[in-house]
């Protein structure tokens, strides 16, 4: 059934308006007389003209074409799609937080600086690091900051030969991208048969050119790098630094700390572990924590406390600089802080405990039908493989699509890259046993379907407004704006008028 929502541009009619602003103020001043004529726009922007109720219906209807944490279970590995507490949303909208200009005098933002100071304190305690910058806007932004810190540190020691960043072959794609964007050459260390960093090989790779090792722990297979102490020693002995990708921090709250494992730099994804909403792709926040020896290089400003007052400290002579304007995604920092304060020490710890328990429970239940490569307890996520199904001509992507029909978001698929037909499953602590049981039932039904009705899986989903977009067409003939669409005849041919039901076989 085609339930396409027409584009907002298609709803536009001359004479409709969706705004209401005062129009009489200064109406005696003629703008044409106030502005040099050559500066005025000649070609007006073709924005839609739509009335307010139509705009609201448009967007609310669109919202209903989404899966979301509030409506569906997202077992998305390494993404930590946990519940986003409503209190956090309310607090971030408090007038005293939302309506602050970044250049207000420090005396007028003491509450905000206090919050940032205390959030930093909590993050330091949770990770075992000495200082944090709250500036990076996302995990990848934090990684970029981390790479700069690595370089600044080695440079400060006149150790200019360190040009290599080592990443495991199971790492998140951002790790090598961040390192390379910043000019490091990327060296990959293989995983061993236990799914961990191959220590013997790592020892061969480290040396005078090693700038740092980037590691996720637990790794993307959901396994704790139990040789982390030896890994740490190998890298540090060679003069390199250890970078902790905090994507999987949800496994460790109150259980273990990257700082204690010997990591020098840590980034956290507040939109994962600390529940700030994903927003359909952002905004997030990616604070970066460091050990004492890297503090002098942190981005400016930092929030300090002096004589009982909170101040923005710009006096960081060896700072790498700034990664963005102002102080960070403050709105996200408020939400994360609220989350931490609500949970407290016991609650945070219970969070990781339940996340680990849930993951192991689901793992045990799907093992009957799907290959799970590592027969040991996992941390907060695990990887299953659709390799048995592959022999039937059904792939991980087909299982992922079919899950949507059961009302479950797909797991992370084809990642990590080293595991064929990977489905990475992370239930988080937010799901009830009842939901997990239903998910397991769906996985098992789908495994049976793969045997009996493989075609059904290859065509799924059937219950959503669309099924299997043509990605090749999208990439070969990019239609990226309404204007492109108006010129793209290939997309008009089979488009059905809105609201006309179309028979589907």
């Amino acid at each position, binding site marked *: 059934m085609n339930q396409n929502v027409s*584009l907002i541009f298609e709803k536009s009619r001359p004479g409709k*308006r*969706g705004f209401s*602003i005062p129009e009489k*103020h200064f109406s005696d001043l003629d703008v044409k007389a*106030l*502005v040099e004529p050559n500066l005025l726009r*000649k*070609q007006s*922007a073709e*924005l839609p003209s*739509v009335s307010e109720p139509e705009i609201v219906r448009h967007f609310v209807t669109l919202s*209903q*074409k*989404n899966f979301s944490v509030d409506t569906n279970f997202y077992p998305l590995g390494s993404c930590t799609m946990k519940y986003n507490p409503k209190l956090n*949303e309310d607090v971030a909208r408090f*007038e*005293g937080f939302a*309506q*602050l*200009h*970044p250049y207000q005098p420090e005396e007028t933002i003491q*509450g905000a600086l206090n919050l940032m100071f205390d959030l930093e304190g909590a993050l330091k305690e949770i990770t075992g690091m000495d200082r944090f910058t709250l500036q990076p806007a996302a995990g*990848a932004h934090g*990684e*970029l900051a981390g790479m700069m810190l690595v370089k600044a540190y080695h440079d400060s020691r006149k150790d200019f030969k360190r040009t290599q960043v080592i990443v495991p072959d199971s790492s998140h794609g951002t790790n090598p991208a961040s390192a*390379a964007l910043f*000019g490091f050459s990327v060296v990959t260390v293989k995983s061993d048969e236990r799914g961990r960093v191959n220590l013997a090989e790592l020892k061969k790779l480290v040396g005078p050119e090693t700038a740092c090792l980037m590691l996720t722990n637990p790794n993307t297979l959901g396994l*704790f790098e139990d040789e982390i102490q030896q890994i740490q020693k190998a890298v540090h002995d060679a003069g390199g630094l250890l970078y902790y990708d905090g994507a999987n921090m949800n496994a460790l709250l109150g259980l*273990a700390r990257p700082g204690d494992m010997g990591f020098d730099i840590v980034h956290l994804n507040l939109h994962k572990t600390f529940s700030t*909403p*994903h927003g359909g792709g952002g905004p997030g926040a990616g604070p970066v924590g460091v050990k004492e020896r890297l503090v002098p290089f942190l981005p400016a400003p930092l929030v300090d406390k002096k004589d009982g007052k909170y101040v923005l400290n710009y006096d960081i002579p060896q700072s790498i*600089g*700034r*990664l*963005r*304007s*102002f102080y960070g*995604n403050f*709105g996200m920092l408020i939400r994360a802080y609220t989350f931490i304060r*609500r949970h*407290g020490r016991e609650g945070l710890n219970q969070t990781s405990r*339940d996340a*680990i*328990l849930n993951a192991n429970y689901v793992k*045990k239940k799907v093992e009957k039908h799907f290959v799970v490569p590592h027969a040991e307890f996992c941390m907060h996520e695990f990887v299953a493989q659709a390799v048995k199904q592959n022999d039937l001509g059904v792939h991980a992507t087909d299982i992922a699509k079919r899950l949507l029909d059961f009302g479950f*978001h*797909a797991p992370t698929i084809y990642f990590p890259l080293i595991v064929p037909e990977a489905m990475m499953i992370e239930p988080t*602590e937010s799901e*009830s046993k009842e939901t997990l049981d239903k998910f397991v039932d769906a996985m098992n039904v789908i495994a049976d379907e793969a045997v009996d009705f493989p075609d059904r899986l290859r065509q799924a989903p059937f219950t959503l407004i669309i*099924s*299997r977009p043509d990605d090749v*067409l999208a990439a070969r003939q990019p239609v*990226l*704006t*309404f*204007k492109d669409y108006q010129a793209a005849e*290939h997309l008009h041919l*089979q488009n059905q008028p809105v609201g006309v039901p*179309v028979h589907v076989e």
Partner: protein
Amino acid sequence: MNYLPLTETDRQEMLADLGVKNFEDLIRVIPEKLRLKDLNLPSGTNELDLTRELRELSAGNQSTAQALSFLGGGYYEHFIPSIINHVISRSEFYTAYTPYQAEASQGTLQTIFEYQSMIAELTGMDISNASNYDGASATAEAALLALRHTGRNKVLVARTLHPEYRETIRTYCFGSHFDIVDVPFDAAGKLDQAALVSLLKDDVAALIVASPNFLGLVEDFEGVAKKVHDAGALFIMSVNPLSLGLFKSPGEWGADIAVGEGQSLGIPMSLGGPGLGFFAVKKELLRKIPGRLVGMTKDRNGHRCFALTLQAREQHIRREKAGSNICTNHALLALAASVYLAAMGKEGLRKVAEYNVRSSVYLREQLAKIKGFEVPFKGSVFNEFVLKSAKKSPTEIVQKLQAQNIFAGLELGEFYPELKDSLLVCATETKTKAELDRFIDAMRAVS
């Protein structure tokens, strides 16, 4: 903890299912030496008490709702129509994941497609990405794009580009062989054309200018694009999108890339973040644009639909060969901007822009009449301008007005030493004539 659905019974049953006695058995893999005994944090707080605690913390701030603020400089106080918060508070939007599973994300995907369309329209460009973090990082990514695209190693940056953006560009190029060179401003506060000509050599990848510039001026860039293109470089404009309701678009000025901060489009200031970086290019640069893109295509049944496209450029596929490591877009704020632009429409956007011009010009003229103040740069403005104080120091003015609950403006000395006697003063559509007059009176009293 009411966020955790597992009951103690559930936990025991599940552990029994797993064949272990207690939770600790699941995590024996963590070396004993690394096991943390306890977090040194306060215990959790119930919702009611925590609300009180955070309400009190927020009351430790003096918000622009309580004060009369004339602060600008990259972030602005604007009117935000009610519908925006209602739309972005739909939890189907804000608790959704990145729309990798197109079938389960048509809502987010279509809103991004509409956002891309509106940004392309507004900037006069062909293509917009799904958004970046903020104006500063978007501008820095534009510089990197130009450096990669041209294979050259120098970027010219107007000194009137936001100082924090300039610093961000430098940070992004930290440790590289790239050279970032400031182009000075002239006596009128505008791009020094003679300096530009002497700097535009064959090692230059791009010129980056701002509109309005950090001194509030909207400049005439006639002929600049040609000079830049003739030198084989790209012309990049960092613009306030709201000003484009009235002023010439980067497309009309001949720019190749338009970037900027979209906070003016219906996003609360929140002490400077999260905002919205936008990034739009001419179609020749389609394959070089960083970040996500949403395209329209057909599904299995031939219906039009939306999907992320051209993903092979991105980090999760190209890894170390990707042009950028960005894997976020500020989708929810792009949505806010879309709702804002849909609500304003062509007509509303022009009216808001005109209001900003009228309001700031009125204020500029009135303040200039006061003895002790002068306006050093006379050009056209959008919503802010430089005010020079002959007698009193800007710090003194700011402090005295703060005592009257007025934020008088931004002291420019910390960004431009030669403007240490000046304030950057901003007036948007949020101010009534009466409020401007109150400010003018207060300024007269301290002049």
